[in-house]
């Protein structure tokens, strides 16, 4: 196989994964719907017809159903982001808010940060702009950047991912406290097609930590 054929195959493979993930997320939401309604029905029955129940039993039932409701809400939120994440690979380029792409990804990065005993936070600054670019590729870029920073994490370190705008371009900043990455040539180190994103990376010191700034321009409509 020549490199073009391999690239086409890889692109199709990504597309398949995206569709499978979207289907999975949709199916899970249906199951979550049934769990939520069933737990809600239990709550209703306890509240409306549970006066004769032993106080302890009643309290335990209320606590258990409240816990189910809380977990279903969290899972639903994660599935919502998983669905958004999966649908990003449907089209090569589209208009999107970079902050949303960051949020979709961070829902899943939280676990990795927690396992590294580090704190992960993200925020979108007021005035963030929509851009036309490849959101799936941006997911990939951000994940690789996160992995790079994660390698430098020590327990107790923190990472803040900020999305904003600078000079008409979307800007995503990784501000972290940990070992510096200043000597790195990011595109080379990450083996990333930054040329495709037409992005640029800058690494600087900031407030006792380090900042990796990525500019993501809006590409012209095809």
């Amino acid at each position, binding site marked *: 196989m020549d490199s073009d054929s391999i690239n086409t195959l890889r692109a199709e493979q990504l597309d398949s994964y995206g569709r499978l993930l979207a289907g999975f997320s949709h199916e899970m939401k249906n199951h979550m719907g049934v769990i939520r309604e069933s737990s809600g029905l239990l709550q209703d029955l306890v509240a409306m017809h549970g006066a004769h129940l032993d106080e302890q039993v009643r309290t335990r039932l209320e606590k258990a159903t409240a816990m189910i409701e809380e977990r279903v809400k969290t899972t639903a939120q994660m*599935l919502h982001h998983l669905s958004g994440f999966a649908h990003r690979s449907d089209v090569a380029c589209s208009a999107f808010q970079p902050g949303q792409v960051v949020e979709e990804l961070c829902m899943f990065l939280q676990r990795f940060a927690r396992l590294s005993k580090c704190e992960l936070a993200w925020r979108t600054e007021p005035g963030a702009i929509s851009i036309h670019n490849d959101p799936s590729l941006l997911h990939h870029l951000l994940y690789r950047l996160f992995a790079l920073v994660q390698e430098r994490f020590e327990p107790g370190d923190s990472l803040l991912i900020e999305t904003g705008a600078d000079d008409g371009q979307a800007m995503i900043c990784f501000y972290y406290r940990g070992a510096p990455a200043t000597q790195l040539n990011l595109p080379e180190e990450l083996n990333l097609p930054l040329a495709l994103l037409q992005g640029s990376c800058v690494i600087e010191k900031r407030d006792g930590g380090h900042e990796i700034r990525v500019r993501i321009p809006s590409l012209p409509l095809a």
Partner: protein
Amino acid sequence: MIQGKILIIDDEVEFASTLRQRLALRGMDVSDAHSGTEGLEQLAGYKPDIVLLDLKMPDMNGLDILSLIKEKYPHTEVIMLTGHGSVAAGIEAMEKGAFDYIMKPVDLRDLLVKIEQAAAGMEQTSHGQ
């Protein structure tokens, strides 16, 4: 208490049945159908005022059922239930005449608010006529 009949059309039998029980516990007159075809049959017989309609079902697309409802029963309000991650599907449904949409898994408090709003809108319409 919310007046009027409610029909739930959703192919997830357990979801539709449990939701029906929860609404019935709140004194509402509710029925459920588990396919698009069954839903259309109940529309003719049960004559609901509000329909809670799943967007994606194996036998019929929720948007097609919505169009049929709006054509035959223009005063019936439809609230779409969508498990789809995209808000776009809900907005498209509203453009086609749905009263509103709600994401699955459904938050009952949100759904009750939407049902109340739909019922209030119908009441105003009937008083205005």
